[in-house]
């Protein structure tokens, strides 16, 4: 597993940063020749998590990179914040569960839209989430 051309980092501190994350992920996904549907799924998942980083994490950053496993190219998007973290991850990953005013589809929905989804969080320890979508 190698990381390609480098990692692009975007801060997520305001509403418009969520849009910037979407645009960056889209352009990297287009460059990696993901299909239109896979681009759309990845950008949608990234949009959910960028908003979570802003609203629940109190802001943070996104890192976008192209990766390869030798056979296929993929896009990896990493989100990190130093917010309150998630105390009960199983509950937070449940469809329809929300601690805020959302629909409760952000985490569980985003996981369904990508190939790999890793989350590292604990109460008081911030949240780090990594998404990967592979080309077909």
């Amino acid at each position, binding site marked *: 597993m190698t990381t390609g051309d480098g990692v692009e980092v975007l801060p997520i501190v305001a509403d418009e940063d*969520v849009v910037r994350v979407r645009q960056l992920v889209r352009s990297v996904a287009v460059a990696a020749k993901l299909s239109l*549907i896979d681009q759309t799924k990845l950008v949608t998942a990234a949009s959910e998590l960028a908003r979570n980083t802003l609203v629940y994490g109190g802001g943070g950053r996104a890192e976008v990179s192209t990766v390869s496993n030798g056979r296929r190219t993929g896009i990896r998007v990493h989100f990190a914040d130093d917010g309150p973290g998630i105390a009960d991850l199983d509950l937070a990953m449940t469809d329809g569960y929300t601690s805020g005013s959302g629909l409760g589809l952000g985490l569980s929905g985003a996981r369904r839209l990508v190939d790999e989804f890793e989350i590292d969080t604990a109460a008081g320890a911030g949240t780090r989430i990594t998404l990967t979508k592979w080309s077909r």
Partner: protein
Amino acid sequence: MDRIPILTLGDILLVSIQVDLEDQLALRLQEDLSDRIVATGAHGVVIDISALDIVDSFIGRMLSTIASISRVLDAETVVVGMRPAVAITLVELGLSLKGVRTALTVEHGLRLLRGARAAELIGLPDDDEPAEPAPAGEPAAAS
């Protein structure tokens, strides 16, 4: 901040979202539309999302909320122009856009609203399942 323009076509309001939608802009559209429905007495709202390359849960919720608010204000909402990739993603995300009528094009949407209004005026039961195929009905096999 910018606003999304709302056009008036007879007793129908037409909104075409042509920008990458920030959350605040979406919330402002919700308020502007409610005001305009009351100010104009409009009976229908058509929201064209053909330029949107994603609809995430926030935007999806905005569309549902607009449909609910306008219904309370005696106006029917139709969301038109959803791209197939957006429809597939929306369903996989888990959003059903409950209570939101959809049509493939602005023209279909306008026809749907005029038909619904005419039926209402002559006292026919509202036909809740329009003949228009909803874009969300695309086969989900292409993942």
